[in-house]
């Protein structure tokens, strides 16, 4: 397999926390320009997989490549292609949202002119202009999530990795974020999104992976999952059936 063909490639990845195996022999390839939804019950290993991809954890066995760069040995090159939005968004609480976005722009070496032009569009689309000059400590979860998404998209990453992106967002913001992700994939970027919101995954994902107890039990398009589950129903029913089989 040529790992440079894929935005994300995991090969035989296992990760344990003490005696608990969080991810077991996981192999997965996410092509460039695709929106990949990563599903699984609570504690299935979704967040661990995401942390392995972005380099916050190291696999016990196996390899992880991002845009052809091995995360363990060439982490800096891999991270330059990545943007990561965790489930609990991080912001410096004594900076304003605008100061934080300027910091991110400088972190990724974006020129002032380009930063201003990109920010103008993101501020408008994510509707963050009203509170962008307040200290981030006063933001609600949804406001933080929108600013962090703007920061993640600011440097136009090749791979966008997001853990539970829709939590805390209002319906309008969810629509905007969904559209942003789809556009990002259409423009050649890759989105790796973990979520419990199955109807969103069903609506926007090009590919879906289901992990259960650390094992990837299904991966493919929605039609391929339907074929696997031998049912012509919604993703919710497919998910419940597959994870029930995993339990049995």
């Amino acid at each position, binding site marked *: 397999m040529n790992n440079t063909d894929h935005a994300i490639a995991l090969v035989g990845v296992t990760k344990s926390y003490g005696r608990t195996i969080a991810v077991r022999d996981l192999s997965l390839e996410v092509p460039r320009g695709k929106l990949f939804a990563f599903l699984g019950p609570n504690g299935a290993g979704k967040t661990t997989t995401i*942390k392995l991809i972005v380099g916050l954890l190291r696999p016990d066995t196996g390899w992880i490549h991002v845009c052809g760069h091995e995360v363990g040995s060439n982490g800096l090159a891999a991270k330059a292609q990545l943007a990561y939005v965790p489930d609990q968004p991080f912001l410096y609480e004594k900076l304003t949202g605008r100061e934080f976005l300027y910091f991110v722009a400088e972190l990724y070496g974006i020129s002032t002119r380009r930063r201003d032009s990109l920010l103008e569009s993101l501020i408008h689309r994510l509707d963050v202009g009203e509170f962008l000059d307040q200290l981030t400590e006063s933001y609600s979860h949804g406001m933080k999530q929108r600013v962090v998404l703007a920061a993640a998209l600011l440097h136009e990453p090749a791979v966008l990795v997001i853990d539970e992106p829709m939590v805390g967002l209002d319906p309008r913001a969810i629509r905007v974020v969904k559209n942003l992700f789809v556009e990002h994939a259409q423009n050649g970027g890759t989105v790796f999104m973990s979520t419990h919101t199955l109807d969103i995954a069903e609506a926007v994902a090009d590919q879906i992976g289901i992990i259960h107890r650390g094992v990837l039990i299904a991966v493919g398009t929605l039609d391929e999952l339907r074929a696997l589950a031998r049912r012509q129903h919604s993703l919710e029913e497919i998910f419940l059936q597959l994870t029930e089989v995993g339990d049995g």
Partner: protein
Amino acid sequence: MAEPLAIPPTRSLLGLLLRVKVRSMWNRTRQAVDEAPVRLSAAVILVALIWLGLYWLFYLVFGQFRRTPLEATVAIPLVFNFFFVAMLVMLTFSNAIIAYGALFGKTESAYLLTAPLTPRDVVTLKYLESTVMASWSLILLGLPLMIALADAAERSVLSVAQRPVFYAVFIAFFLAFIPIPGALGMLLAWAAARFCPRRTIQSAAVAGGILVAGFVVWGMRSLRLGETEAEVWLRSFLARMSFIESALLPNNWVAAGIDHMIHNQLSQSLLYLGVTLANAFFISWLAVMIVSRYFDRAHDRAAAGRSGSKRPASRASGGLAGLLFFYLPPPLRLIAAKDLRTFSRDPLQWSQLVILFGLMALYLTNMPTLRVEFSGSGWFLIIPFLNLCAVSLILATFTCRFVFPLVSLEGQKLWLVGLVPTPRGHILLAKFAFAMTVTVFVAVATMALATVMLELDIVWAVIHVVVTVGICFGLCGFSVGIGARLPMFNQTNTARIANGLGGTTNLLASVALVATVLIGVGVATWRSRDLTSGRLPDAASLAICGAAVLVTVAAGLAALWIGARHFNRVEV
């Protein structure tokens, strides 16, 4: 989409990270000036008062030295040697705890690790941050020390014109010294995360406790007078301490440099400053290189180590709570049991209590070795009274830091705790019962040990134990009551809750309460100074002690009542 970054940035982004920190600090200061000018002014005034108090104390000490120039020649470098060796140990430990949190515990380091930053930039930032956070108090302590030393020096040695140079070099010594424990602390934190990631904080707390206890045992043994003459003892003591004057230890470079400065030997002083600086740069570079080289592995091990079943411990603490809080109704007993579990799983809380009272216990068990003849004079009461003062102040520190935030922390969970089928104010009783149980247990045990070691009369032993329980009652009542009256429900950081307006109010009230009670007991002790051991105090002294206990109990009850009234109608 633009062409993604193909080549990772090779430039150091440390400057950018530092600018963000400076900006955050600037915003924090501006916010404090705009939103809480009174609190900021009060803090500045309090700091100024502490500085003046320290200056006065140091001036008296150095003035005393100046009266005996021969002894001062030996004593001043020794005092500085002791001061800086103690600072080296304490700052290393404090840096290790802060660096561990900064490197492996904060979401910021996780965020920075996913950005295209070199580990060296992240580690350097965290090193600087933790060193400043752990060491600012040394600077606070150092400035009045420096001015007092210069003012107490003979004018013939250090003229007014020379003092600015002295101050500059003195500050330079402090600044050159603090990176050394900073780097050692960061290496310790990294080693803990890398090699014993499971229960790291517990291991660090226990290691620190053992370190401090060992240091104290060693110190006490060195201080024992034995049967020898004072001069022989002094020589023996200095001989045992001679290793701290080793040329390889940084405390010696700083002490020697300051001593040369006091004697207006600038070039020799600058030589020692150069040695300190060079070593500080070297060890900082070495620590940053080692930690950044293996940072991702250590971060991974620290993250992977935070697991493990708590079921056996949970059963044990549940059983213990059932015994300790048997008198509470079931819902309140469960809340007290929850607080006990949280306490037992937070090493910051129990380790502070264990270390402070452990030090007291060590000191008390070594009391008889001092062989000072107390019986037959009022001293047999003065020493236990001083013990009571120390225990009370430790209790006030503990309740202000750890009991006060308990009610605020329930703010996030009031949807659950607030629905307990009992009046909401009663929840404060559970908090109070938990705090009383923990504080009475350790304080009474310590005071009982003190009375046994000093072979105190039974009447005075009972008086001291009853006063201690009364102080526990008052302090716990204050911390729970004021905690409920001035809570910070939107804050989860206990340190910030304790440092807020309510926490500061509670601290001042607790210190005032302790002072009131101790003045009462002090007066009773003073009135009984002519009593010989075995004689009972007079009725007036007993009445004063009784009144002091009543005052603290009444104050605690009043605070609880005020807190409960507010807590019953509070909206979160």
